[in-house]
C-alpha cells in the first residue's frame, strides 16, 4: 500500500508541478481569474445589490443557489450523523441526576463559560446581521452561535446543554433554517420571477429592488445561521457522546 501510495503521489506531484509552470504567479492582477468575473462583481455588485461586502453579495445573491445547497450540505451532514449514531429508543434508561459535583466539573470553567456564552451569542448575531457590510455572514455567525452552545456542553455536560436547547428543537430548527432559505426563493417563484430572484420581494415589502436584494440576503443569511447553529451543536453532541447524548467528553 505504501509503495502504491508513493507512486501515486509521485505521479500526481509531477503533474501538478508541471502544471504550476503554466499558472499565473501569485497575486498577478492580470490572471484570467482576477479579471473576468471578478471585475464584474467588484464593479457592478454594489449597483445591483446595494451590498458593500462583495463576498456576501456573490455568496448570497449571484451564487445564492450554490449557497442554498451549501446549507443543505450542512443539514445533510447533521441528519447523516444522526442516522448513523443515534439509537432510539435507548437501550437502558438513564438515571437523570443534576450531578453538580461530577468529577471534572470545574467551578471556574463553568462560571467563565456562563459569562462568555451570552457575549458570544451577541457577537454572533452581530456577525450575522452585519454580514453584508463587514466580514461575516450566516455561516460565520452560525458557527459562533453553535460554538457557544458547545462551550456550554463542554464546561458542563451535554445533558445540561440539551436542557437549554432540546434536541427536538435542534432538528426542527435545522430544517427550518433551510426551509427559510428555500422559502425566500420560493416566494420569488410564486411572484412570477425565477427562483431566488430577490427583486420579487420589492413589491411585497414596498421597497426598491435594490433594497429587496439586500433584505433577501439578510433573510437568507439568517436561515443559514439557524441551520449552521443547530447542526454544529448536533454534530458535537452526537460525536462527543457516540450518539448516547450522555455526559460526553
Amino acid at each position: 500500500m505504501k509503495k502504491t501510495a508513493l507512486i501515486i503521489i509521485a505521479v500526481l506531484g509531477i503533474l501538478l508541478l508541471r502544471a504550476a509552470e503554466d499558472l499565473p504567479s501569485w497575486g498577478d492582477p492580470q490572471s484570467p481569474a482576477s479579471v473576468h468575473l471578478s471585475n464584474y462583481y467588484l464593479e457592478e455588485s454594489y449597483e445591483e445589490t446595494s451590498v458593500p461586502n462583495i463576498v456576501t453579495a456573490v455568496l448570497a445573491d449571484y451564487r445564492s443557489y450554490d449557497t442554498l445547497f451549501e446549507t443543505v450540505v450542512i443539514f445533510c451532514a447533521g441528519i447523516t450523523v444522526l442516522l448513523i449514531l443515534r439509537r432510539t429508543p435507548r437501550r437502558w434508561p438513564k438515571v437523570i441526576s443534576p450531578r453538580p459535583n461530577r468529577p471534572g466539573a470545574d467551578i471556574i470553567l463553568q462560571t467563565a463559560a456562563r459569562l462568555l456564552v451570552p457575549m458570544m451569542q451577541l457577537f454572533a448575531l452581530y456577525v450575522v446581521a452585519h454580514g453584508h457590510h463587514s466580514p461575516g455572514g450566516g455561516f460565520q455567525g452560525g458557527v459562533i452561535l453553535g460554538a457557544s452552545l458547545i462551550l456550554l456542553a463542554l464546561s458542563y455536560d451535554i445533558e445540561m446543554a440539551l436542557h437549554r436547547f432540546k434536541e427536538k428543537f435542534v432538528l426542527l430548527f435545522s430544517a427550518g433554517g433551510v426551509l427559510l432559505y428555500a422559502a425566500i426563493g420560493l416566494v420569488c417563484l410564486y411572484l412570477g420571477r425565477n427562483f431566488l430572484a430577490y427583486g420579487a420581494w420589492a413589491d411585497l415589502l414596498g421597497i426598491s429592488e435594490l433594497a429587496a436584494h439586500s433584505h433577501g440576503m439578510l433573510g437568507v443569511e439568517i436561515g443559514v445561521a439557524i441551520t449552521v447553529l443547530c447542526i454544529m451543536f448536533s454534530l458535537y453532541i452526537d460525536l462527543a457522546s457516540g450518539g448516547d447524548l450522555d455526559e460526553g467528553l
Partner: protein
Amino acid sequence: MSLEQHAIIIILAPLLGALVISLIGGLHRRVAYLTLVAALAVSFSSTIATLSQVAARAAEGPLHYFLGDWQPPYGIELVIDPLNALVLTMVAGVSLLVAIYSKETVRRESPDRLHHYYTLFALLVAGLLGITATGDIFNLYVLTEIAALASYALLASGRGFAYYATFKYIIMGTIGACFYLLGVGYLYIKTGTLNMAEMQAFMTRPALLHSESIRVAFILIMVGLWIKMAFFPLHGWLPNAYTRTSTTTSCLVAPLMTKVSVYVMIRVMFGVFTLPYAYHVMGWNTAVVWLASLAIVAGSIGALAQTNLKRMLTYIIVAEVGYMVGGAWLGNAAGLTGAIYHIISDGLMTACLFMAVGAITFKTGEINLEAMRGVFRRMPVTAAIFVVGGLAMIGIPPTCGFFSKWYLLSGGLAAGHYGFVVALLFSSLVNAVLFFRLFEIGYYPLFDAQSEAGQHDKVVVAEAPLSMLVPMLITAAMILVVGLYTSRIVSGLIEYALPAGLKL
C-alpha cells in the same frame, strides 16, 4: 406554474420534500413515505414536462433557467438539453419507483429513524437531479457532495460491515471529489469563469488548447469522475459498499450514482471541454477504450465468481461502467450514442434487477444464489421481472439492453477497436451464463435432496407485497418500452445531444 419553472421544480420538489419529511415525518411513518412519494412524483412530472419541451425544440438548443434572474456567467444557470433531459427523466423516474418500492423494506430495515432515512433519500435524489441539470461547473461540485453525503448515510444504514465499506467509499469519494474540485480550480484560473458554456467557448483559444494546466485539469477531473463512477481499476470500493447496505439503498444508489457520474463525464468532455480537445488533443482514446474493455472483462469475471446475488450485480455494474466509458471514448457518433443510451437503459436494468433481488431477499431472508431456488413457483411475478431484467443485461431484443449493445458494438466496429467489441461480446456471454444459472436455480425446485418429484406442486405462492411489485412491473415494462422506442429516443433526442462534429 409557468412552463419555464419546471426546470427548477425538478430539483426543488425533492429538496422541499426532504425538509418537510424531517419536520413532520416523525409524526408517523406513513407521512414520511407519502411525502417522499409525492415530492418525487412532482419532480418526475416536471422532468416529463421538460423532456417534452426539450424534445419539441431539440433543434433550437437547450433550455436555460437563470437562477435569481442573474445572467450567466455571473449567476448560476440550469441548462437542459436533450442529453440531460433524458438523464433527468431516468433519475427522477427510477427514484420515484424505488421510493414507492421502499415502503416495506425501509420499515423492516430502519424502523427507527425512518424519517431521517427518507430525508436523506430525498436529498440524494435532489443532489443527483441538481448535478444533472446544472450548467455551472462549481455548482456541480456542491451538488455532488450532497449526493455523496446522503449516499454515505444511506449506505451505512446496512449496519455491521457496511460501516467499513462505507468508510472506504468516503475516502475514495472524497479523493474523487477533491480531484474534481482541483481540476475546476485550474480551469477557473485559466479561464476566469465557472459557467460551462462560457468555459467551452474560451477553450478554443489556442493559448488554452495547448496549455499544460488545462491538460492537467482535464486529467484530474476525469480521474476524479472515474473514481466516483468506479471505473476500472478504481472500482474497488463499489462492490463492498453496494453489497453490504440495505435493500432500499442499493436499489436507489446502484442504478443512479454511477450513471450520473458517467453523465457528468460526458458533460465535461463535450460541454466544458470540446470534442476536438477530448478526442484529439488528449489523444487518450485508445488507452481509455482499452481500459474500458478491461473493466468489462474484469467486471464480468468478478461477477462470475460471486455467490451473493447482490454482489454479483455490483460487479455487473463495474462492467457496465466500462460499456459507457468505452462508448463515450470511442470517438464516433455510434459509440457516444450507445453510451448515452446505455445511461438510460442501464439505469432501468440495474433498478429492475436490484429491486427483484431485493424482493426475493425480502421474502426469503437470503441473499445467496440459493435464495433463487424455486423462485419461479414461489414468486412468479418477481421471477418474470427478474427474467426481463436479466435478458436486458444479456442483450436480447427487444429490450433496451440490446439496443445499447447495438450502438456500442457499431461504435466499436466503426472505430476499429476490436478489443472493445470482443469485450462487449464476452460480457454478453458471461451475463448469459450468470443469469441463466440463476434462472436455472429458480426453475429447478427438485434438486433439494429431501424434496421428491411431485412435491413441487405444494409450493405456496408467496409474492412480494403490492407496493414492491408495482414499481418492479413498471420498471420491467419500461425496459421493453424504451427498447421499442429506441428509434424515437435516438433520432428525437440523442442525436441532438451529440456534440457538433459527431453526427450519426
